[in-house]
């Protein structure tokens, strides 16, 4: 993963030590003020991010039910997941890929495209559209848990049913949230609706910093239409923001998976139609108390997230310090 860290900046606050090449300990002591500054962050970071990930990796090799002592079983959890867990193989994996591939890249491309469109408009009206497109991402989660069951209600009183019946598209009401045929699509729809979040704002802000002269120079160099402009000028110019947006899209997609449990009212969706890896983890961790098994699932999910992030870095990261 290529991560840019700037080279030494002038005007450092470090107290210059008299020794020509001081040892590590004395350098650390000389910079104690810096460690005090990052200390609180580092402590919470280690406690709530690093340790949980390490513990998850460790636990994944144990059989642990939260009561008796953990028992080391090697790769057995992973073997069981990949060979015997029918629900995982039949529902969680295909569902997760379907959901992630549509909501992740789909939401990301929508974010970029809408940010670009808004940026084409005159300045005075941009704020209104930004608010309108961004607001749904504020409305995800529990606050709107009341809205979806009412809109997608399965009887004639349901708003969607009523609308479609009136328009003659349906001839009888559909049980939107109970029918496995539709459940996944509703999850995807709501997640896409709410996917213009932080990444969208980052790309929009990035677009506003692009120098206008770049486009004039591009026009002279033979760029003739807006599509060429996007691919040859705009995207390279806001690559760093595109990368930030991509990372946020990966994390956002994982978080968006919670919508299934909200719609169904339990971690288990109708006939596993919206069963994602995250639900599978919750099922084993919170309902069945098979913590080792759940940890092994977590590790697989983290690997998936890591892979997706790495791909984003390869697409949009700066190459020079690789």
């Amino acid at each position, binding site marked *: 993963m290529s991560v840019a860290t700037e080279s030494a900046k002038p005007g450092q*606050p*470090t107290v210059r030590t008299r020794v020509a090449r001081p040892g590590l300990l004395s350098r650390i002591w000389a910079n104690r003020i810096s460690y005090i500054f990052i200390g609180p962050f580092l402590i*919470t970071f280690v406690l709530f991010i690093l340790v949980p990930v390490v513990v998850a990796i460790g636990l994944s090799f144990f059989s642990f039910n939260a009561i008796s002592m953990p028992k080391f079983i090697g790769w057995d959890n992973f073997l069981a997941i990949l060979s015997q867990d029918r629900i995982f193989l039949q529902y969680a994996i295909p569902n997760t890929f379907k959901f992630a591939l549509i909501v992740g890249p789909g939401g990301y491309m929508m974010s970029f495209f809408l940010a670009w469109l808004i940026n084409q408009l005159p300045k005075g009206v941009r704020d209104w559209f930004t608010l309108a497109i961004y607001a749904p991402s504020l409305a995800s989660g529990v606050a709107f848990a009341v809205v979806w069951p009412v809109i997608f*209600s399965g009887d004639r009183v349901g708003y969607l049913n*009523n609308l479609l019946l009136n328009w003659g598209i349906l001839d009888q009401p559909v049980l939107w949230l109970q029918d496995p045929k539709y459940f996944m699509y509703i999850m995807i729809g709501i997640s896409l609706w709410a996917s213009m979040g*932080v990444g969208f704002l980052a790309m929009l802000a990035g677009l*506003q910093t692009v120098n206008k002269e770049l486009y004039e120079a591009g026009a002279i160099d033979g760029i003739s239409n807006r599509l060429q402009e996007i691919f040859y000028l705009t995207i390279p110019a806001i690559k760093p923001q595109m990368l930030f947006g991509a990372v946020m899209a990966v994390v956002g997609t994982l978080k968006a998976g919670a919508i299934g449990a909200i719609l169904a*009212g339990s971690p288990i969706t109708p006939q596993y139609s919206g069963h994602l890896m995250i639900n599978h983890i919750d099922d084993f961790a919170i309902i069945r108390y098979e913590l080792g098994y759940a940890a092994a699932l977590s590790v697989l999910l983290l690997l998936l997230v890591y892979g997706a992030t790495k791909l984003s870095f390869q697409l949009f990261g700066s190459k020079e310090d690789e």
Partner: protein
Amino acid sequence: MKTLQMMTRRSGVSLARAWRKAKAVDWFQRITFLGLLLLAVFMALPIIFIFNHAFKPINELFLYPPRFIVQEPTLENFRDLFLKTQSLVIPFTRYLFNSLLTTSLTMIGVIGVSSMAAYAFSKHVFPGSKFFFALTIFALMFAPEAVAIPRYLVIANIGIMNTYFAHIIPLIAAPTSVFLMKQFVDQIPNELMEAARIDGAKEWLIFFRIVMPVCTPAIATVAILTFQGAWSQTETSNLYIQVESMKTLPYYVMTLTNGLANNVVGQGIAAAVGLIMFVPNLIIFLVSQRRVLATMAHSGIK
């Protein structure tokens, strides 16, 4: 009635004026404007819906055929929420208080901790600084949902289970906030700090007198993002708190809405509390939209 007409006309006029004032509006911009307008209206439908639903009297909530727009708006649902739940073991106001308290403490904590770390990452060079910052970038992709159980074990072992700290401390570790702040602090010229240092200013003074004031847009952004995350998360109430009186508002919403499709009794109350959850998010963003975008311009990972 007359004033209403005037008001709608005036707002229409101002939008039209802003539109006309923009020079050289070409056909592409016209089509984009129309297309975005349609999309924005479509996307706003669920939001318009919750605003209407929360103000519907009980007979309108279950009207057939259902009406999207409220006919006779009433505060009945909000009154029920505040008064009826007052007789329950844990009244609604208790959840609201818990949420307000823990969310504001979380915001203060994240802002303090993140801006301190950001300043050191940006302007100090010390052994391990690059490594720790690389780790922070790496952690941008971290999602606590994936490791809920190990986090539970950590929280149980440091002894903050069933305290308000369990709502706050796990959220203090915010790599995204540190990253956004650091990118913003990078913009402050080093000469500014150097001059202060020559005048004998200590690091803390520089941090509070120079860095923090310059970084207000970034602080506003971090505050908003933290608020959004903390205000609506159910993780801490679900997992780390067993005492009912210490759980937060989103948890209460969840208990109201679970299985709502079958249970129609609490729908008005649920809509009201959903609106109460949503509106602060909207208002805070509305107020500081410009500052957020100013911060986000520096959000790129180079």
